[in-house]
């Protein structure tokens, strides 16, 4: 017995089972995770009332005017400017009282997570050219798909993270065993032989795996690291990564004290008048230094002597920059609110090497640093990963069907076939249904976001039941066709129900909305094409030999798709 042969065989066995057991979950994680690269864009598309807003250079001033009118005495103002990923302006403010409470806590080092959102605040979305208040429909948005990607839904958070964490571990095992199993990585590098049954599925699986291998290794390893505190609770103590809660409180206290001293400095500067200095020069100064526009502005104590303006860039430009909530926070620039003079420019990087590696891998996974082109590359490699998992699942079944040579498949095999239909084709239908629900549910419906999510799961459950009453091949064709029709129909539905349709968005160059419609259309066409291929396929092996048992061979014929 040769060592290499047996190693490859056992690795092949390991690869098959590691991939299968949590494969459907992995497919869902990959699919929703890939969509989540465009989380903000998906949310924007799901709020078509915002589509008419056009970014303008006056956006910051419009926001300040709106804040001055609505909340002149607020303790702090926040402005989110239009970016390539959002065409509106968001404003929010916080009452002085609630802000004082929060500051007190921070000084005591007890600053909680997301404290800025606590009561006494309000937020609005404005048109970026007119300053008019926009009221979008309520939606679960891209956020649901993003959360589902690592926390599933309606399960206790720890449980869900454990489940997805185990799936990630299985993925890691599958990658390593897959590389060892693959006989001819270099020889088959560019090989894809379509319409050849098992051969084609193997080629598709290999090609998508090998060509985006750097992505697969990165995304799986960093995914594991993001789960590290769940899977290995002790690591927090050693790794010193992004999420040390205790030290974060202390850091917040330090930061609060630092800001207070800056504000005192700004207040003692008598050069400026009482009013807020114009923001435009500050934005220009920051843009010049950073080489990219500002995306967020925080104004502390507006209208007071110690008023201070804090600017954040649009995206991180280093992997080791911590991507906190919203993906920013490592790089800041602060100005005196009345003088408009720059007080400081700060870059906060993790100190130890471990923390830097950890932060960099976290950044890579979430890709919040990615500007549009790079974001598309992430999305495309994510699509490759989704195809890889899906083709792997189908390959498992096809390979075993081939081995049966017409004998009836066992219960386990039938279960895998059944789950493949619902887990692969059915998930596409469920995601499409989620988007359809967004357009079809009444805009004033209470708990609208929840209803969108219910539509997603209800449709997915139906997809799980559907293969029970249909022959396998029919089930595949029907679910792929339905998914294809629903996706390809999204631009049409959008045109009927909103004004944010391709006819308008393409003309005005509104790529956030147009891009969604186009990707949906392409997805739909691909699914319809897949359905057509399944329908046209006649397995050669079965045709050339007389069937052993009519029912069983018909079944294998379907399984061999």
């Amino acid at each position: 017995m040769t060592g290499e042969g047996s190693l490859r065989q056992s690795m092949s066995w390991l690869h098959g089972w590691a991939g299968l057991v949590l494969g459907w979950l992995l497919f869902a994680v990959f699919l929703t995770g890939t969509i989540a690269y465009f989380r903000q864009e998906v949310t924007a598309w799901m709020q078509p009332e915002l589509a008419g807003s056009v970014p303008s250079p006056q956006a910051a001033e419009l926001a300040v005017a709106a804040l001055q009118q609505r909340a002149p005495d607020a303790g702090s103002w926040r402005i989110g400017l239009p970016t390539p990923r959002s065409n509106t302006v968001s404003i929010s403010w916080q009452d002085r009282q609630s802000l004082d409470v929060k500051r007190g806590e921070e000084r005591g080092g007890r600053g909680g997570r997301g404290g800025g959102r606590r009561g006494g605040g309000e937020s609005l979305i404005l048109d970026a050219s007119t300053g008019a208040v926009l009221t979008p429909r309520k939606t679960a948005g891209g956020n649901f798909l993003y959360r589902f990607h690592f926390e599933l839904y309606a399960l206790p958070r720890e449980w869900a993270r454990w489940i997805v964490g185990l799936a990630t571990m299985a993925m890691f095992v599958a990658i390593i065993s897959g590389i060892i199993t693959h006989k001819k990585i270099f020889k088959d590098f560019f090989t894809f032989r379509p319409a050849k049954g098992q051969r084609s599925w193997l080629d598709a699986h290999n090609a998508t795996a090998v060509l985006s291998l750097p992505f697969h290794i990165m995304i799986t390893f960093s995914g594991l690291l993001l789960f590290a505190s769940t899977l290995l609770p002790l690591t927090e103590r050693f790794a010193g990564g992004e999420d040390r809660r205790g030290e974060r409180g202390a850091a917040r206290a330090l930061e609060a004290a630092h800001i207070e001293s800056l504000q005192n400095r700004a207040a003692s500067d008598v050069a400026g008048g009482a009013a807020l200095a114009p923001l435009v020069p500050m934005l220009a100064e920051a843009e010049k230094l950073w080489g990219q526009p500002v995306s967020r502005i925080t104004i502390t104590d507006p209208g007071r002597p110690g008023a201070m303006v804090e600017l954040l860039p649009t995206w991180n430009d280093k992997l080791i920059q911590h991507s906190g909530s919203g993906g920013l926070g490592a790089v800041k620039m602060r100005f005196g609110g009345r003088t408009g003079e720059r007080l400081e420019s700060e870059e906060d990087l993790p100190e130890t090497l471990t923390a830097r590696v950890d932060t960099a891998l976290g950044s890579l996974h979430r890709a919040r640093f990615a500007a549009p082109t790079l974001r598309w590359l992430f999305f495309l490699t994510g699509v490759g990963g989704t195809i890889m998992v899906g083709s792997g699942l189908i390959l498992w079944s096809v390979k075993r069907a081939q081995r049966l040579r017409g004998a009836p498949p066992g219960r386990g095999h039938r279960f895998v076939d059944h789950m493949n239909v619902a887990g692969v084709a059915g998930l596409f239908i469920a995601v499409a249904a989620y988007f359809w629900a967004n357009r079809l549910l009444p805009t004033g419906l209470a708990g609208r976001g929840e209803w969108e999510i219910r539509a997603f799961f209800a449709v997915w459950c139906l997809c799980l039941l559907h293969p029970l009453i249909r022959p396998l091949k029919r089930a595949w064709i029907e679910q792929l066709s339905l998914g294809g029709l629903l996706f390809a129909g999204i631009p049409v539905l959008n045109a009927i129900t909103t004004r944010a349709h391709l006819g308008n968005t393409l003309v005005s160059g509104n790529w956030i909305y147009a891009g969604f419609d186009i990707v949906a259309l392409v997805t739909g066409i691909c699914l319809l094409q897949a359905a057509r291929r399944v329908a046209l396929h006649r397995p050669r092996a079965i045709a050339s030999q007389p069937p052993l048992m009519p029912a069983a061979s018909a079944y294998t014929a379907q399984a061999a798709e």
Partner: protein
Amino acid sequence: MPISLCLSFLAFFALAFSMGRHRQQMTVRRLGAFGRFSAPAGWGLLLLSPLPFALLPNEGIALTEWFGVLTVAATGVLLMLTYRPRALPLAAAAVSVLLLILALLVVLPGRV
């Protein structure tokens, strides 16, 4: 990024060209001078392909972009070999011209 994409597309084309099976797909009969040197040329171009990213300020992001570009370029070669194999040499020639134009666009403003 476009320059790197062109370089890596040409690199993968050359590597595919050096493999007998893929050369058959492209229906190239005679090996020619390029045939003999296509493998080293492919590896050489592949080594050159990250260089345009050296201009980027951050090496981590540059590396990320390079990996993404490699994946896209290799996928392009694979899809063409599968569905339009005979057009691949033509596509490679077109990409070479494009690469030349892009390179000139980068170099010229510095000289003038």
